[in-house]
């Protein structure tokens, strides 16, 4: 009894080998007429399909596809273009906009999409402070004038208008959940107005979206999109290479670089096998922040109040080497922080104001400031000799680049006589430490929205935390009335060119203060296969990602290639595999059994 089970298990294990070998030979069969499926690999699951509760990047991709917005964003440059609304007019004071919806709009469940849905979404999200809506709708009031006309009034001048990029939800589905705690709604209804709607979610594995037959631009060329979760980035890269998936988001940097080398040429002919890698920028960046102590909380190192010390820190860091060795050259080097995926907001810092690697100058600044190494231990002391220039350096345990950044940055600082004490925190711990002001420097990053206002607002004086229980966003504890005045100005400036100018001025000011040393702008590491689909769009053009971009225009634009395979697995070949497996298992089970039997005989004999 026991003996047999052993034999069979052995056989099963061995049978697995056969499973594998046959599988390799039977992939890639084509079956015309089958569902056209795009499979995308990613490393993050949805947190929830509920747009009032989720906040992970993965979920935004779902909502981008499922919910159309009043105005769209051009794939190239985020220009505001008609979406659900075909046109709009502004009032003279610029506070009220009247949008006209397209004719005959329908939800994916065939219910009509009306101005009432729009008004309800805007007003309810404002009242209930929905996570992903309230930033835009906080000051808005919407009124449905008739089925196709909605009037939106802002309480304050808002340069973001007429852009209305909030997800419009179907009132007939959401009214009931919104009567209670809307965040607890499962939101698996799959009713939307975008090109694809949620069909099925298998948490921890994948989610599937199917083409919406009622999409206002017409039904998409691909029938469904499967988003598949890989906890291991290497596994995802392998899946892309062997064709299990068509595209991948967030590839490990090493493999991404490796893959980029293998790409034969960017202009592949139809059907030719190849993988195109995309380093997509969206304005996200990694910075070394220093404690400005404006809130009066905590115990930041007093030397950091000296702008020369902050400059010395910036000058000591070889950002070129950091970018090449840690970021592996993926992304871009910029002097200032990213406030938008749109690079028009990034100013050019004049050469004489740039803080590029110059340890000699860093030493000079520190020497002149009186920060000398008086006790000869290699670390400088404060001018009054009270304490050494030893800074607490905090990093995130979640970051895969933290180790490289730490070894390099602390090494360079040591070379100019600044010592560091490293601590590693998870995000919750680090947020608390920043809120309490008990830090000297930390490495973290931000990813901006399309409009620069939100990110700019973080560095206002009123965003400095003064009460630990109510942490605000100014994580560098930095305050400048001049910056605040410029912020207020751009916030109400309706002339775009002038607004860009003001923002440039703000960012230059922030750069020159050296509160943040922007180490580099990150890029999303993505890649796609060229053998099955064409029409991949980068947003913004040339530098942006193809997937998980701001408004995800790629999916609707994709067309299956002639000669490309429709579905991933042909049914007949699967059946053949099964028979082979079953046969293999049976043979091996028998063989294993015989072996065990004969061995047990031998045992008895001796």
């Amino acid at each position: 009894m026991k003996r047999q089970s052993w034999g069979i298990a052995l056989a099963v294990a061995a049978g697995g080998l056969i499973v594998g070998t046959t599988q390799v030979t039977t992939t890639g069969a084509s079956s015309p007429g089958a569902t056209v499926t795009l499979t995308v690999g990613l490393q993050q699951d949805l947190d929830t399909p509920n747009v009032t509760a989720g906040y992970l990047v993965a979920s935004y991709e779902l909502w981008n596809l499922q919910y159309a917005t009043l105005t769209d964003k051009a794939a190239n440059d985020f220009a505001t273009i008609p979406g659900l609304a075909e046109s709009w007019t502004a009032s003279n004071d610029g506070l009220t906009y009247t949008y006209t919806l397209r004719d005959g709009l329908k939800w994916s469940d065939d219910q009509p999409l009306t101005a009432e849905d729009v008004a309800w979404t805007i007003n309810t999200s404002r009242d209930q402070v929905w996570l992903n809506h309230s930033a835009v709708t906080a000051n808005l009031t919407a009124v449905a004038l008739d089925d196709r006309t909605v009037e939106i009034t802002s309480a304050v001048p808002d340069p973001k208008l007429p852009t209305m990029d909030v997800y419009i939800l179907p009132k007939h589905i959401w009214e009931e959940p919104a009567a209670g705690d809307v965040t607890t709604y499962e939101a698996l209804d799959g009713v939307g107005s975008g090109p694809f709607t949620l069909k099925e979610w298998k948490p921890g594995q994948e989610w599937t979206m199917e083409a919406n037959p009622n999409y206002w631009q017409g039904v998409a060329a691909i029938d469904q999109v499967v988003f598949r979760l890989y906890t291991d980035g290497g596994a995802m890269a392998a899946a892309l290479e062997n064709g299990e998936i068509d595209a991948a988001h967030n590839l490990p940097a090493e493999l991404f670089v490796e893959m980029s080398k293998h790409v034969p040429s960017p202009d592949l002919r139809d059907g030719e096998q190849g993988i195109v890698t995309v380093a997509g920028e969206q304005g996200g960046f990694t910075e070394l922040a220093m404690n400005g102590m404006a809130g009066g909380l905590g115990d930041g190192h007093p030397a950091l109040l000296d702008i020369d010390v902050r400059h010395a820190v910036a000058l000591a860091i070889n950002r070129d080497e950091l970018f090449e060795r840690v970021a592996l050259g993926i992304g871009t080097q910029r002097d200032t922080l990213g406030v938008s995926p749109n690079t028009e907001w990034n100013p050019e810092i004049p050469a004489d104001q740039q803080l590029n690697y110059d340890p000699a100058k860093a030493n000079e600044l520190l020497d002149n400031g009186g920060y000398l190494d008086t006790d000869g231990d290699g670390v400088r002391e404060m001018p009054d000799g009270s304490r050494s220039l030893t800074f607490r350096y905090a990093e995130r345990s979640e970051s895969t680049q933290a180790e490289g950044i730490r070894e390099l940055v602390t090494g360079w600082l040591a070379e100019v006589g600044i010592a560091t004490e490293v601590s590693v925190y998870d995000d919750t711990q680090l947020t608390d430490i920043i809120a309490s002001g008990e830090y000297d420097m930390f490495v973290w990053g931000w990813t901006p929205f399309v409009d620069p206002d939100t990110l700019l607002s973080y560095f206002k004086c009123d965003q400095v935390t003064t009460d630990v229980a109510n942490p605000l966003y100014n994580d560098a504890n930095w305050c400048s009335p001049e910056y605040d005045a410029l912020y207020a100005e751009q916030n109400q400036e309706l002339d775009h060119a002038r607004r860009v100018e003001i923002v440039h001025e703000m960012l230059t000011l922030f750069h020159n203060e050296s509160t943040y040393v922007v180490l580099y702008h990150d890029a999303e590491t993505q890649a796609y296969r060229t053998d099955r689909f064409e029409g991949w769009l980068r947003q913004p053009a040339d530098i942006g990602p193809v997937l998980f971009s701001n408004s995800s225009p790629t999916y609707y634009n994709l067309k299956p290639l002639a000669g490309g395979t429709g579905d991933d697995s042909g049914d007949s070949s699967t059946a053949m595999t099964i028979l082979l497996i079953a046969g293999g298992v049976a043979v091996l089970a028998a063989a294993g059994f015989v072996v065990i039997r004969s061995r047990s005989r031998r045992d008895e004999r001796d």
Partner: protein
Amino acid sequence: MSVEADLPLASPRSIRWSRRRASLAETGRRIRKDRLAVIALLVLIGFVLLAIITPWITDRADFNAINTGNNPTNQPPNGDYLLGTDRYGRSVALQLMWGARVSLFVGFVATVLTIVIGVLIGLAAGFFGGWIDALLMRITDWFLVIPFLPTAIVLAAVLERSLWTVVLVIGITSWPSSARLVRSQVLSVRERLYVDRARALGAGRLHIVGRHILPNVTPLILASATLAVPISILTETTLSFLGLGDPTSISWGGMLDQAQQSSAVTAGHWWYYLPPGIAIMLVVLAFTIFGRALEEVLDPRLRAR
């Protein structure tokens, strides 16, 4: 050989010591007969020596990314780099050597903590008996039943990232078995005649514990400690791999985490994840073999077989 016989005037103290020496010699002799245990011991000594001399023969700064800018990255083993290099051009061999220090350190210190907690609780329970015993054993049972690794993981996830956290977490989660062992030994030793005699002579409790009970349970504690070290090392490895170790000091588990983070497995950088794994395996195997041999020699019940 027989020391006692030659020294008729020896004090009771020296007799006791010479007896101990003799029993130690006996233990050594028995172990020496077990060839595998000897090899295991040699392997262990080798690793410990390596860990000790590493700072003298190599420089920690040599595999700090700040100094490896000119090294080739992700190189397979070659003449210059015996075990190749990682993504920052750092020598894997150097990391392995320095990692031995951290892994062995955590293994030893965590075991000491485990044993100290276990011995204190076991002694207290066994010696005092009554409600103290009942209470302590209930707590021990609780800790025995709740799953070891998940407990360690939640503890480490909640506390700050440092080597001491790892040590503490291992100590807190793995003391119960040694507490039980010590308690049962104390119970059996306590019943032996000489403790009664000592008590009859008016010896204090501390005296009884220190002079009679501890020396008798020491061999077993030693054996169980030897078997606890590999478990501590494996636990440290797992915690580090899950990102709960101290990322600022490289251990073998931390190396595996780094390898995983830089996709060494799928990229085919086998030199990055095979050596730490093999090192862990060798050390754990050696400790286990040696520990079992020790246990067999020291535990009369096992020896009878």
